[in-house]
């Protein structure tokens, strides 16, 4: 797609304008069934096999709200420090589109299940430091997803409606439960606005994963982000001061379906620089949706959007209001996991990591694995050494995620214990790891099968040491004479005699002891 938009340098944009960001995140809930019917939500089923009269919108069919989805929405709200509505209704959002079976979306309008929350996010500053930014949450509400259209042209598929001969509709996704989380305008972040946006979406993703309410995979669309960006003139130095806050918000654009954390940051930067060029030329920003192009890192104009879009909302008369009792809300609150940022701080302390080490652990996706390995009995240092060392190296080489390597935290704990007990040395442990990764069994099994174990029989080792000393009297004399470094040759010989199945440190100690030299 040719992109003709001019962009302004980001520094110049920031010199003249104050960016304001708004984020709308759709989280697809991983409930077993859909929002308003009993159909399965399994990903990847044959088209239209997971449908029923309700999600197909057949005449006469009626919705019933999925209690598990309501619970999940409440838990998300609580995790975002929201108030939970004592009573709220669903609403119909009316518009015609073939992927909507009823031609209205059952959503929530002026009565969201959760509202007035906040999330404190840790925003890296790019120089190794970071700061905390409080994102105000306006609301989190429940709604249903639409079906999926595939536009087809003769002689080849296409995803664009223009020029398509016909469209194929798959309603498997129709009625899948979604929670939409909407922020208040994020102001005062200035140059860090793109990083704030990224940090927020990342933090939100971690929270819904920790809540176990969604797999939150942006690349699969189970977490989708729309980024609203606008610029307003600067009013003095202080971006969070009353003068700046009094400046009316500029015209915003909404960039749809940004599908990775990195893209969230890039899309915000792009829109800032594009809008900066528009405003700098004396023109006005058009209020519209914009499409994000991952390959070029740009956005292009979509549908003009006005505040007058008329969805003729009204309360959904087919559904009774959702009225969670205070008792139910408190029960759900008790199920909340430790907030991810607090957990990170705690583990950092427990494991004794520096900020940089923590960031590496988090960045490589090893936090949960190390934590689970420690829970399975590994030492924090040992667990971290394996996951961040040998396993990560192999994962990177194979372009796979740590969690996809076929190694469990229990395996790592066992490996760590074998080394700690002196049954394996480092090189043997690496061989055992290869065996486990190759699917040969647990570390114990692999060590047994491959005959990997340090000889713990002191008699055999002592005999070997004595034989080697006797055969290398000249070297032994040097050592006795104080040249301890010369013992290396003896150690190598003993290890050879023992076919590597000995602990080198122990061999060294034994040799020095026999020769009457202090280690």
């Amino acid at each position, binding site marked *: 797609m040719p992109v003709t938009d001019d962009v302004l340098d980001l520094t110049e944009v920031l010199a003249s304008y104050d960016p304001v960001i708004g984020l709308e995140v759709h989280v697809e809930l991983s409930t077993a069934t859909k929002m308003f019917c009993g159909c399965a939500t399994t990903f990847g089923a044959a088209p239209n096999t997971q449908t029923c009269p309700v999600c197909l919108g057949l005449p006469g*069919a009626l919705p019933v709200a999925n209690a598990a989805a309501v619970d999940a929405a409440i838990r998300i709200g609580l995790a975002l420090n929201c108030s939970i509505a004592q009573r709220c209704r669903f609403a119909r959002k009316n518009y015609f589109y073939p992927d909507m079976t009823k031609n209205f979306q059952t959503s929530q309008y002026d009565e969201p299940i959760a509202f007035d929350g906040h999330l404190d996010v840790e925003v890296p500053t790019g120089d190794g430091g970071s700061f905390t930014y409080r994102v105000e949450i306006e609301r989190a509400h429940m709604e249903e997803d639409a079906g999926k259209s595939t536009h087809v042209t003769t002689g080849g598929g296409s995803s664009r409606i223009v020029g398509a001969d016909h469209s194929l509709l798959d309603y498997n996704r129709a009625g899948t439960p979604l929670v939409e989380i909407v922020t208040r305008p994020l102001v005062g972040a200035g140059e860090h606005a793109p990083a704030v946006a990224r940090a927020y979406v990342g933090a939100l993703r971690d929270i819904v994963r920790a809540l176990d309410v969604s797999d939150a995979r942006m690349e699969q669309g189970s977490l989708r982000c729309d980024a609203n960006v606008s610029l307003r003139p600067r009013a003095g130095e202080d971006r969070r001061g009353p003068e700046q806050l009094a400046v009316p918000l500029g015209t915003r654009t909404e960039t749809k379906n940004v599908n990775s954390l990195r893209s969230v940051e890039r899309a915000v930067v792009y829109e800032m620089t594009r809008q900066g060029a528009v405003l700098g030329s004396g023109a006005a920003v058009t209020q519209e949706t914009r499409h994000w192009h991952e390959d070029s890192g740009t956005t292009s104009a979509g549908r003009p959007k006005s505040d007058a879009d008329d969805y003729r909302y009204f309360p959904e008369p087919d559904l009774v209001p959702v009225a969670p009792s205070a008792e139910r809300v408190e029960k759900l609150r008790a199920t909340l996991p430790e907030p991810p940022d607090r957990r990170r701080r705690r583990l950092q302390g427990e494991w004794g990591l520096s900020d940089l080490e923590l960031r590496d652990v988090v960045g490589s996706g090893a936090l949960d694995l190390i934590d689970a390995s420690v829970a399975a009995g590994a030492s924090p240092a040992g667990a971290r050494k394996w996951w961040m060392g040998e396993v990560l190296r192999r994962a990177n080489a194979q372009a796979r995620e740590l969690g996809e390597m076929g190694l469990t935290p229990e395996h790592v704990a066992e490996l760590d214990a074998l080394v700690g007990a002196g049954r394996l040395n480092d090189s043997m442990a690496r061989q055992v790891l290869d065996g486990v990764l190759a699917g040969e069994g647990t570390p114990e099994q692999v060590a047994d099968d491959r005959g990997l174990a340090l000889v713990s029989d002191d008699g055999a080792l002592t005999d070997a040491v004595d034989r080697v000393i006797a055969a290398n009297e000249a070297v032994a004399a040097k050592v006795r004479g104080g040249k301890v470094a010369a013992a290396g040759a003896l150690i190598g010989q003993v290890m050879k005699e023992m076919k590597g199945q000995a602990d080198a440190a122990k061999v060294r100690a034994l040799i020095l002891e026999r020769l009457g030299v202090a280690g």
Partner: protein
Amino acid sequence: MTDHPDLVRRSAARLAADLAARDVSAVEVVRAHLDRMDAVDGAVHAYLHRDDEGALATAREVDAARARGEALHPLAGVPVAVKDVACTVGQPTTAGSKMLEGWMPPYDATVVERLRAAGLPILGKTNMDEFAMGSSTEHSAYGVTRNPWDLTRVPGGSGGGSSAVLASFQAPLAVGSDTGGSIRQPAAVTGTVGTKPTYGGVSRYGVIALASSLDQIGPCARTVLDTALLHEVLAGHDPRDSTSIDAPVPPVVQAARRADVAGLRIGVVGGRDATGYQPGVLARFTEALDRLEAAGATVVDVACPHFDYAVAAYYLILPSEASSNLARYDAMRYGLRVDPSRGGASSAEQVMAASREAGFGDEVKRRIILGTYALSAGYVDAYYGQAQRVRTLVAHDFAAAFEQVDVLVSPTTPTTAYPIGEKVDDPLAMYRLDVTTIPANLAGVPGLSVPVGLADEDGLPVGLQVLAPAMADDRLYTVAAALERDLVDAWGAPLLDRAPEVSTSPVPTPTRQEA
């Protein structure tokens, strides 16, 4: 096989007893009704679809089960007709619209499931105004149904088909739906009985929606007891309908059998000399009040000041909800599909527009436009919002009234059945006739219409409406059964015995007088 020429005139309760005593078989009962349909439905046009084979198959199963000595539902083998608004597997379901011509639902409405589970043979689907929008069946896309009392007149609506099959002895029981009076008003103008249960008392699952917050499914029959018996089959909690009430069904059959109004406080909505009623309607109504008083009830006047605004509120809420409920008929998945280009080059939007233009009748379009407007940004509060506030006031009127009295009564309709064609071009005149029945739908309370005689000026049936608090549906049946017993005693025979025998030749044009 025994010949029972009077089988079709028997009540459902009587047929149930005869079947249980094996005086007659379910197959004989169904055949008698099919024969009656052959004879008179050409003139009445109450059925849109007949399921002779399906009804006979059910009857045979019931007979076989009875022969094996199995425990059966008391109404097993008693046939029933179903308004074409309820989804039925194996029979088309059209809601009286071209939009759904020939549409075969892949599932049964909950009420249909219940009928099947109880072993009631379903004779067919009855005519109705398109998507239940109307009070006369004149808005059916498949032609008007005629009133068996006078084939030049309407049978009421939207459930005119269900009331007409009862009044012409083509079924002893029928299922209707009532959004603003579509069960009670047809019952009144055909001399039959019909109940709109408490909102949430009967599942709406599988019944094509008109206005979700107003629609209620209910029983229709020729006697109060029969109506109660069918009510019991239809009612009860359904987890597939979010608005379904999870509570025991009120003891309606027991109440119909008790039929005792001694000590009951009865309120007359607007007073005995309320204006706007046809004289013959008011005369029969006040006589009925005298009978209730004579039977030991206390009758007092009750003011419900906000009922005056009910029609206006109703005709904003109904179109608003209907405009959204009917959005699904877009030709994308089922129903009528019109391709304006004929060559397949039309966009989805063009196909949607052309199909909706061709598939919906004028009254449906009128209400979709009205509802779309009432929900539009900038207007929604003044129209839909204001109507909802009136609705709350109407509910408060009922609550206040039911603190003083146990039930409310009024004439079911301001007039008797009017001639076909008389009001079809004056929608506002037609809307205004719903004034008596609409408040119950706005408040969700139950209502029933029972025949109380014929108007002197035209010799046509008059109905009395009983209204009760939510989930006190049993009170409707106590009052109506007491009145019915008293009246039938006085008349010496059921009112329908005075109806003329239906001509067996079809009537050619809607407005021509019967020769």
